[in-house]
């Protein structure tokens, strides 16, 4: 599989409820240096790249931070094993 096969797909939870589109794949880097998938970042509307404002921590300009927060509202991380990729 390629990352591009996952990104942009609409995913559902175990009950078949729609979660949104996949915006990013989040991996934890293990002791051996291999990144293992732990979560999926889903977003209700946006299709493209999230410009980096989805990461925790402060990033300016203030207007952009607020604008990105509003445009991407509802964006959340879902643990990998709770996501159904039909």
């Amino acid at each position, binding site marked *: 599989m390629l990352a591009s096969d996952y990104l942009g797909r609409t995913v559902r939870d175990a009950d078949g409820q729609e979660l949104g589109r996949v915006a990013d794949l989040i991996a934890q880097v293990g002791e051996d240096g291999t990144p293992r998938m732990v979560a999926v970042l889903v977003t209700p509307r946006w299709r493209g*790249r999230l*410009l980096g404002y989805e990461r925790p921590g402060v990033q300016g*300009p203030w207007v*952009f931070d607020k604008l990105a927060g509003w445009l991407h509202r509802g964006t959340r991380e879902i643990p990998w094993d709770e996501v159904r990729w039909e």
Partner: protein
Amino acid sequence: MKRVFAITLGILTAIGGFVDIGDLVANAVTGARFGMRLAWVVVVGVIGICVYAEMCGRVAAVSGRPVFDLVRERLGPRIGLTNLIGSYLATLFTLSAEIGGVAIAVELATSVHYLLWVPIAAFVVWVVIWRVKFEMMERIFGLAGLSLVVFVVALIQLAPPWGQLAGQAVTPVVPAGEDWATYGFFAVALFAAALTPYEVFFFSSGGVEERWTRKDLVVSRLNVFIGFPLGGLLSLGVMGTAATLFLPLGVRVESLDQVALPVAVALGKLGLAVVILGFFAATFGAALETGLSAGYTIAQYFGWQWGKLVRPREAARFHTVVLVSILIGVAMLLTTTDPIMITEYSLVFSAVALPLTYLPILIVANDRDYLGDQVNSRTANALGVTYLVIILVVAVAAVPLMIISGMGG
């Protein structure tokens, strides 16, 4: 002492390198039609290029990443590709206009028709890109471009009614006989001439080529904050001479020799010789910058090896793009399209392509993963956001204004 010398040389280069065919044409044409009533746009434009050139210089020095690398990294491959097509076309039109400018400068000196000089000028531009070291290339044409100071000297020599020029500058209204659309169109052209996208491509890639590090931030800032405004002053000199000589007579500027005429009137043959040298250096230097920038944009989008630090055969794709771009630029001129016309189209194209280039610069200049403690200050962000809004307005207005005013009529 050596360091002071290097910094001074850098600033002088920035002054001389600031003005290109777009600035010459846009400033002279508007000076002749509107006097100094659009001078404020040059000031706004120069502050804008300072804000963004400083940002991309800082990003290049700290993270080593040039502008078009960031464009794709932040905007993704699709929007990045749209941006690539727009920016490449704007740069290509500018390249063609600059080569035309070089050929016309030689025509002014030799009286041999410029179309005969176009292939020769283009060949020499390519040879310089192929053979001459980056820093040497920058210095020679930047310093020679300083001879455009002759416009400021000529303006003083013409003893213009200073009060009247100043009066026009502080009352930026549409004069009788002109309409809003034409005024707006020339405002867009002047703004785009000051902020052409290739300037940031070239400035940031040049920083990477010269292996800037954090230590070079001071040099980068001095070049930007002293060099660019003084370069803008040369632009205003061009506008002022045209306003003094042509506006009262109601003469319109339609060719490059008319741009030079006020200098010849004020300073005679010697002045004319200096101004022709200045035209040649300014357009030739800008042809080198746009030729390289055409290669930079495409190579950086795809992640290819680029630049003049490596042997050409190790950056074959980059050098092919540069070569092909120069050939297309020549082909456009050989259709006998007026270089002034190509220049005006290049400015409109630039205005449209600007926002998508400047947005990622502003975002990355705030990213601590890239810049650590060198992220934008509040002032830089306030200015950056303000200018992004202005750029957006200009980009949206450019094409409608061009159509309504019929390219300024």
